[in-house]
């Protein structure tokens, strides 16, 4: 085994050990205090729920995952496009930026009725909520990447009479890539949250549902072990999407070099 894989193994052990200790403590506490299962289910209860609910969990996770990915993709496309527009004019930036911040701060629960009125309940509304929640980090990071350019480089491009498009295409956009990667990582985590919150408020029927509905229905029915199972599935989905985006990002950055070389 090479030293680096040993190192990776060494990094895995401590958190795994901690998990084992916590699970054992938890199981013992439930047994010792005799808590009712609807209040605090034991890890074994949760495991049983996962097995029992396997198919439902899987299809709900897939459904939520698809909505999160769709919303995230829409954020990437839309965010970069909006950032490009922002980068072209101080006036546009000054007049539109406050509304971009609005996206970041508006409580989804407040606009949920509006979304339902306009788009109905279902997949499209969930994707829309995901988009609203995950868009801002992309806009903010990409805009600063497009604008934070060394004055010397802009002069270099001016010296060779570069047009607006050449500056955008050959300087601003490539310069913004590392910024975009940072924004995409934040955004991917928020996209999963957005999809679950969206399902919670605007996106479920009793036959087609994702993790958001599963969380809602299991908690209303005091099926706490199943609620735990749904929460774990949500966390895993978030970690998976974040992991994929982070991995793709660092692969891209390795090729890119980060920032401008001095």
């Amino acid at each position, binding site marked *: 085994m090479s030293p680096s894989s040993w190192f990776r193994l060494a990094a895995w052990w401590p958190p795994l050990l901690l998990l084992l200790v916590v699970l054992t403590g938890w199981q013992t506490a439930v047994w010792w205090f005799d808590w009712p299962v609807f209040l605090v289910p034991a890890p074994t209860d949760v495991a049983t729920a996962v097995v029992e609910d396997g198919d439902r969990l899987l299809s709900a996770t897939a459904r939520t995952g698809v909505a999160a990915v769709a919303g995230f993709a829409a954020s990437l496309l839309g965010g970069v496009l909006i950032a490009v527009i922002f980068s072209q004019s101080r006036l546009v930036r000054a007049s539109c930026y406050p509304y971009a911040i609005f996206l970041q701060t508006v409580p989804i629960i407040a606009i949920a009725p509006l979304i339902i009125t306009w788009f109905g309940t279902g997949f499209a509304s969930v994707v829309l909520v995901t988009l609203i929640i995950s868009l801002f980090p992309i806009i903010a990071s990409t805009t600063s990447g497009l604008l934070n350019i060394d004055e*010397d480089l802009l*002069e270099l491009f001016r010296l060779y009479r*570069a047009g607006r498009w050449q500056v955008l295409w050959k300087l601003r956009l490539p310069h913004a890539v590392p910024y975009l990667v940072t924004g995409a990582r934040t955004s991917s985590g928020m996209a999963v949250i957005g999809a679950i919150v969206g399902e919670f408020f605007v996106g479920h029927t009793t036959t087609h549902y994702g993790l958001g509905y599963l969380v809602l229905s299991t908690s209303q029915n005091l099926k706490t072990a199943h609620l735990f199972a749904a929460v774990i599935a949500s966390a895993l989905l978030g970690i998976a999407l974040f992991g994929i985006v982070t991995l793709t990002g660092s692969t891209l950055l390795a090729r890119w070099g980060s920032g401008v070389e001095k």
Partner: protein
Amino acid sequence: MDSPSAPSVLPALSFDGVTVAFDARHPVLERVDLTIADGEFVSLVGPSGCGKSTALRLMAGLLEPTSGTVERYEDSRVALVFQEPNLLPWRTVEENIRLPLELLGVEATEARQRVGESLELISFGPADAVKRPRELSGGMRMRVSLARALVTRPDVLLLDEPFAALDDLLREQLNEELLEIHSARGTTAIFVTHNVSEAVFLADRVVVMPATTGDEFVHVPVGFSRPRNAALRATADFAQLAGDVSTTLRNSDREEAR
């Protein structure tokens, strides 16, 4: 040696009563007259904040004078080398060098040939050409920056303290390489620096800019024959002249203090 007021050959560049004032009461340059001959190598020295970089940006056409005129010979091509290499990290060495040609719309075959020439000029082999800036040392990056300027075959090469961030040994080595390139190409060069020894070693004429805006520029001709090499720095004449320039520079600074 060309006298500063009446160059014997065509002027590559001239300032006629040039004033630059970003605000009306504190002009950066005031009624400056300066003529630079075709093929001449001029070092521009002066205290910090005397307007050296402003002068260079006027020559590059990146800045318009508030009054007066800046004239360049015919439609001469100008290239600029900055203090930082300012390479694009996502491009390889050869892609960085090719950038100005892309912006100017030079056709691909022609561009490939010129990039090849430029790489040769800085002695970069095929393996170095595909490296990215972060894989290069500071000196190598500076060479690439120089090659990127030369690839457009400029008539006038403007250098804004290009070697200031490098250590002395590397600086002297790059000075010699720059002289070789200058003599091979016959390019007019204007070199801004804080380093008097460097200024004298490179130039046909050292222009000392005054600390006080509006005061006279002092022109010090440098008569050493070319090609010059490292041995020149060790001669008494060189030390004498460098001393003179230093004194002039100090006096100009003292004016400011008065």
